[in-house]
């Protein structure tokens, strides 16, 4: 791929990214909600983990998992892009088909913007509050602590890049399904609960029952949240952390391939509505 072929997709990404950065009031309201949620979760886990319990994760690691999970919440592929389904309903998708770009890559670029701009607006205040404000007020025990070490930082950064790719590939698949069904509502009702449970956003995956653990490692949602959070706190380190990166990369390839096939299939039977 040369620079010239990538340029239109970069332009799409940049335009969407800047557009999505404008929704600051919504991000602030969401931030308030997430502070409440994080506080409740931290206290609930602290109560569960106090006393003589045999836990696969320390309280320190669990608290980091909760705060960082709240910060990155909007990276999860919660929902399909409502604009694309609307374009199909109104017939505007015809314009999309006329653009001299490859449809999958074009929609993927839009998804990358959605999965970076919106989370960024929420992650910054959340990390500042949990990682800087709480410790400086003397509540370091309840806040977000520093990453487990130099190698954890390096692997965590790589893992976050893969999270963006994985979340965008997921989102693009949801967008395609929404286009296929002319509405994003059905897709959202199904996917949101799956994402919240299997990414570890509801309960950290290592705290789920032991017999579920092997299955949890290999499902695609773990790479969206659970892996990077555990790498950050040192719960996943060394060869395990590298295996997690490989798992993320493998799922990116699978989902992109699936998305490409689905794009061809959906576009072949797309009916342009309206007149």
């Amino acid at each position, binding site marked *: 791929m040369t620079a010239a072929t990538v340029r239109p997709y970069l332009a799409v990404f940049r335009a969407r990214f800047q557009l999505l950065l404008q929704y600051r009031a*919504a991000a602030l*309201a*969401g931030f*308030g*909600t997430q502070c*409440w*949620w994080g*506080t*409740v979760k931290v*206290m*609930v886990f602290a*109560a*569960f*983990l*106090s006393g003589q*319990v045999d*836990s696969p994760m320390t309280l320190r690691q669990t608290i980091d998992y909760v705060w960082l999970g709240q910060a990155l919440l909007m990276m999860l592929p919660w929902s399909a892009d409502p604009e694309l389904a609307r374009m199909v309903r109104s017939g505007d998708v015809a314009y999309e088909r006329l653009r001299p770009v490859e449809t999958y890559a074009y929609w993927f670029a839009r998804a990358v913007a959605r999965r970076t701009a919106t989370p960024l607006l929420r992650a910054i205040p959340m990390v500042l509050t949990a990682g800087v404000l709480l410790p400086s007020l003397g509540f370091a025990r309840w806040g977000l602590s520093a990453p487990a070490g130099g190698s954890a930082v390096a692997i965590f950064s790589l893992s976050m890049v893969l999270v963006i790719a994985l979340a965008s590939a997921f989102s693009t698949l949801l967008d395609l399904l929404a286009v296929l069904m002319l509405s994003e509502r*059905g897709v959202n*009702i199904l996917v*949101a*609960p799956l994402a*919240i*449970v299997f990414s570890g956003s*509801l*309960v950290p995956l290592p*705290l*789920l*029952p*032991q017999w579920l653990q092997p299955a949890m490692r290999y499902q695609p949602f773990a790479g969206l949240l659970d892996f990077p959070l555990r790498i950050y706190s040192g719960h996943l380190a060394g060869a395990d952390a590298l295996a997690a990166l490989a798992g993320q990369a493998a799922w990116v390839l699978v989902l992109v391939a699936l998305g490409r096939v689905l794009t061809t299939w959906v576009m072949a039977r797309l009916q342009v509505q309206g007149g």
Partner: protein
Amino acid sequence: MNAIRLYGRYVRASLHSQMRYPASFLLTSLGAFLATGIDFIAVWALFARFRQIAGWHFGEVALFYAVIGVSFALADGLTRGFDVFGEQFVRTGDFDRVLVRPRSTVLQLLGYEVRATRIGRLAQAVVVWIIATRLTHIGWTWQVWSTLLFAVAGGMALFSGILVLQATMAFWTVESLEIANTLSYGGVEAAQYPLDIYARWFRNFLTFVVPLGCVSYFPVASVLGRADRTGLWPGLLPFSPALGFVFLGVALWTWRFGVRRYASTGS
């Protein structure tokens, strides 16, 4: 026609219109049932590993969860008009039409829609309630029933009050703000665990500011025969849901204040 008969007619009309789309009703209800069901499975998973939380067992926590869940599902189903007040009434200027009718604004907004799909959330909470009765050893006497029904009524009043306050804010902000969800959905999340696991400041907030603890923790703890660990006078415990009604009263007073300063956005 008196207010109650008029409200009955509103309810019939609303249910009738929703039943025109039976498939949509069934799927949305099922979605609500599954989404909240997953939430409870998370609680179960944590108990499967840790057995207890601050001395409370799974069955006991299930009863806290069920009482707050039933209250919220009922309140959420009945107060849709307040929930969508910002977008549907203030921004569009439709509130003008509500004001010129010779009936109270509260009655008209209550009658705006009865969300039948909340039956999914209600059913989930009732299932948890049944699980809780199986796992605890409560004698289901009339005192127990009346305490818990009073708790549910107080909880409905409290959640309705939160939604009325959210709607009242729209008089100033025009759009409904998502921040009120913190107290409704977030309140359910916080109140499904016993209050004594939380830090003192948070416990006080949930008792005296937004009395979520009063409509679940105190009455349920008294039913479970557990000594309260927050230091409230034990004789008062079963009566604490009354604070939910006080909260609703304050919310309705604020609402009237908001209505008086309403300026239409329409032209």
